């Protein structure tokens, strides 16, 4: 089962702000990557966020943490599928699990 969960689809009007969730469980402190897949284009990096150290998470494991991304004043051109990927450095020795993806549809 996929342990990285994302909202399936969000439909908004142009100019709205959108929050896309990414809920995951991890051992250690991952870097959270967001990738975007525009129609007929290769996936590309949108954002990278390095998680803070253990004092903020109370230990070595993170369970069901939500690290959303927010897009403000979206445009039709922002319509795409957004994937999150929690990844530990050196953690590619474990399976890399992308989130299920959020399809963002921005209507004019």
């Amino acid at each position, binding site marked *: 089962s*996929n342990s990285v969960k994302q909202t399936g689809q969000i439909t908004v009007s142009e100019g709205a702000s959108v929050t896309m969730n990414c809920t995951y469980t991890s051992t250690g402190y991952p*870097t959270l*990557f967001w*990738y975007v897949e525009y129609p007929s284009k*290769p*996936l*590309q*990096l949108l954002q*990278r966020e390095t998680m803070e150290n253990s004092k903020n998470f109370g230990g070595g494991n993170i369970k069901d943490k939500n690290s959303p991304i927010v897009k403000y004043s979206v445009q039709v051109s922002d319509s795409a599928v957004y*994937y999150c990927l929690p*990844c*530990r*450095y*050196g*953690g*590619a*020795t*474990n*399976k*890399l*699990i*992308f*989130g*299920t*993806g959020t399809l963002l549809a921005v209507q004019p």
Partner: protein
Amino acid sequence: GAGVSQSPSNKVTEKGKDVELRCDPISGHTALYWYRQSLGQGLEFLIYFQGNSAPDKSGLPSDRFSAERTGGSVSTLTIQRTQQEDSAVYLCASSRTDGGEQFFGPGTRLTVL
């Protein structure tokens, strides 16, 4: 090259045939990743290489799937005795270091009839 390239871009094959998919990563990138994207599914991790070594092959769906990487560069994903459920877009990505930003290729769309 300027980016990750994959070939062929499209492949149609008959059930039971073997196929080879090729990935040329960005020069100097030590890590290389293969994913599968099926219709209506997300990105399924298959395998990753650090240099020429694949530390974890457990993501490969069955023993019909294999991959190799030579010279720390080009990688080939081979699917033997293809089945219809193998139909998908196969994506390759590379990164400068293990766990770094991944740069994706355009993918190979495989259709098994």
